[in-house]
């Protein structure tokens, strides 16, 4: 087992990883930009290294400074968290070259999974159902339009190098295809430096349901159930829950088995997530696989009792999985709300500022994952996540009540600061959501209805 780990991240995930390291008796090296000098993970760490100015490009994304920090402090492993370098194959490769264990899959696997077209091919070969779509990127706008006709509208145009909700456009009307194609390829070129796109069927009324998997170095893999992440705004998740109200136990088992099959087919190692869309008839289709721990991982932890970061570290240290599939049990219902420092009344504009008052809820089965503390600052340089509020209860009805209670206790005050907590509470009270009958366009409908327009 490692004796010292460097956490190449910041905010809530850095603190969360540090906590498990502490429990495992592993020393923590925190790295921080100038903007994060006075943050909880830096205070908790055994060693802290200042690695750059606030801009992520020069700090949390600047590989040489992070590697040097690891070498200087004798860190045996690096945990990349999520975002930043967590799915950067170059970073994984450099770690390997420097003799530092990378908590995650190999650079080669990451490279495959970072290319949506390659991944779809691998998953298709593993027998996972895919949405009708192109396995190769389309060659031209005419090619794309022809494929769209073959696939059947509505379609979605997706950048090969995109992911996480970025670089995609839905086309419902064939007349709109050319404009959408040109717009998406131009944006993909500008943002990712890669203008290739592929085209697939767009499912109406689908749910985003992802499956958590764990794979070890000996080729063993298990799934830890699903997370329903259908409540999204502009493809950014707002609320996640487990179990999904759309899944029957049979569907859960089938999707879990498919996810493990797919992960093992790409030789995955560590904690990963296989994303599916599930239509109203209960058919599921592979979307993408994420090669990192996810923001919403606490939802799985609360219902399974398994510490995912602990498992990641054990696997990275070469240990085999500690559990067989039959030993994984699911209990109750968990919900997570991502509370962002954004103003819903101003188009969810981020509101950086000083946290004069920050009081978190507590109480039964109420968990807060946050990198912020009272007196600290919500920085304009990074994402606007203020805190993840997670609750568990024996069933969904009680979990909804518990989350509403918890969000009611949350107090955030500071000049110019706003949060999405009230928006979240409004969603929790929405009849469609409460009935579990929402789908992936729920937030759009919810916001349109709130404005008084037609749903």
């Amino acid at each position: 087992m490692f004796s010292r780990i460097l956490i190449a991240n910041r905010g809530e995930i850095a603190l969360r990883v540090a906590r498990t390291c502490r429990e495992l008796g592993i020393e923590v090296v925190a790295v921080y930009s100038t903007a994060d000098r006075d943050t909880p993970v830096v205070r908790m760490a055994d060693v802290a290294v200042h690695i750059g100015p606030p801009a992520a490009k020069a700090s949390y994304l600047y590989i040489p400074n992070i590697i040097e920090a690891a070498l200087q402090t004798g860190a045996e492993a690096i945990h990349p968290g999520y975002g930043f370098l967590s799915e950067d194959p170059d970073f994984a490769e450099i770690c390997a070259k420097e003799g530092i264990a990378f908590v995650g899959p190999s650079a080669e696997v990451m490279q495959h999974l970072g290319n949506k077209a390659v991944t779809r091919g691998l998953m298709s070969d593993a027998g996972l159902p895919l949405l009708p779509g192109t396995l190769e990127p389309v060659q031209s706008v005419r090619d794309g339009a022809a494929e769209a006709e073959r696939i059947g509208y509505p379609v979605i145009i997706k950048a090969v190098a995109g992911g996480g909700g970025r670089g995609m456009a839905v086309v419902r009307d064939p007349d709109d295809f050319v404009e959408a194609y040109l717009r998406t390829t131009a944006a993909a070129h500008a943002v990712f430096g890669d203008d290739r796109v592929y085209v697939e069927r767009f499912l109406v009324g689908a749910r985003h349901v992802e499956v958590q998997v764990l794979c070890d170095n000996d080729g063993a893999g298990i799934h830890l159930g699903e997370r329903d992440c259908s409540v999204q705004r502009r493809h950014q998740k707002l609320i996640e829950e487990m179990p999904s109200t759309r899944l029957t136990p049979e569907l859960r088992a089938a999707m879990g088995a498919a996810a493990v099959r797919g992960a093992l087919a790409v030789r995955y190692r560590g904690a990963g997530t296989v994303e599916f869309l599930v239509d109203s008839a209960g058919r599921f289709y592979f979307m993408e696989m994420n090669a990192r721990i996810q923001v919403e991982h606490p939802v799985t932890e609360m219902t399974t009792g398994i510490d995912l970061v602990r498992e990641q570290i054990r696997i990275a240290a070469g240990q085999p999985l500690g559990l067989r599939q039959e030993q994984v049990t699911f209990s109750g219902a968990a919900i997570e709300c991502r509370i962002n420092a954004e103003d819903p009344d101003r188009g969810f504009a981020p509101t950086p500022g000083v946290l004069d008052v920050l009081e978190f809820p507590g109480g039964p089965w109420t968990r807060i994952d946050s990198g912020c503390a009272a007196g600290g600052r919500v920085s304009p340089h990074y994402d606007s996540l203020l805190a993840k509020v997670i609750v568990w209860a024996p069933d969904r009805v009680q979990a909804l009540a518990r989350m509403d209670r918890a969000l009611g206790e949350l107090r955030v005050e500071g000049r110019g600061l706003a949060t999405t907590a009230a928006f979240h509470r409004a969603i929790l009270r929405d009849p469609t959501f409460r009935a579990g009958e929402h789908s992936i366009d729920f937030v759009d409908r919810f916001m349109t209805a709130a404005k008084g327009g037609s749903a």
Partner: protein
Amino acid sequence: MTEQVEQPVTPGTRGDLGELCARATELVRGLPGPVRRVALRTGDHGVDIEWSVSGEPVTAAEVAVPPPARLAAATDAAIDAGPADDATYVVVRAPLVGTFYAAPQPGAAPFVVVGDVVEPGQTVGMLEAMKLMNHVIADTAGRVVEILVANREPVEFDQPLVRLGTP
């Protein structure tokens, strides 16, 4: 119990009052006794903190006990404002994380020694990071007053390396 690898904060050439206030607040929070005096300056000068221990006023600079990380900053901030004269100091800081080398090769003469006058753009040291050598450049002219790190010492981003006084 955080071991801060970073060196003390010196405002250096940046005189941000807001940053000084934030720093002072941070330091005051970590004091072992009630604060008596806080002095903030801008420009090239730093923060002075005075606090009471057992009713006796003690200046930061006089505390000899090895302090926890935050207090070290308080002590050093006062010391780091420079020797008690009216001279203006500029500190050349590390632009990246790496290992400091005082000379171009082992056994060669160091780039600079105390007393040398440097020109803007002059190399005052090297930083090795991932097998690549990077020059540490002085932005301004000045006389080398103090070399703050040892040869082959690992340094972090923004760590003070060389103090320059007026030429």
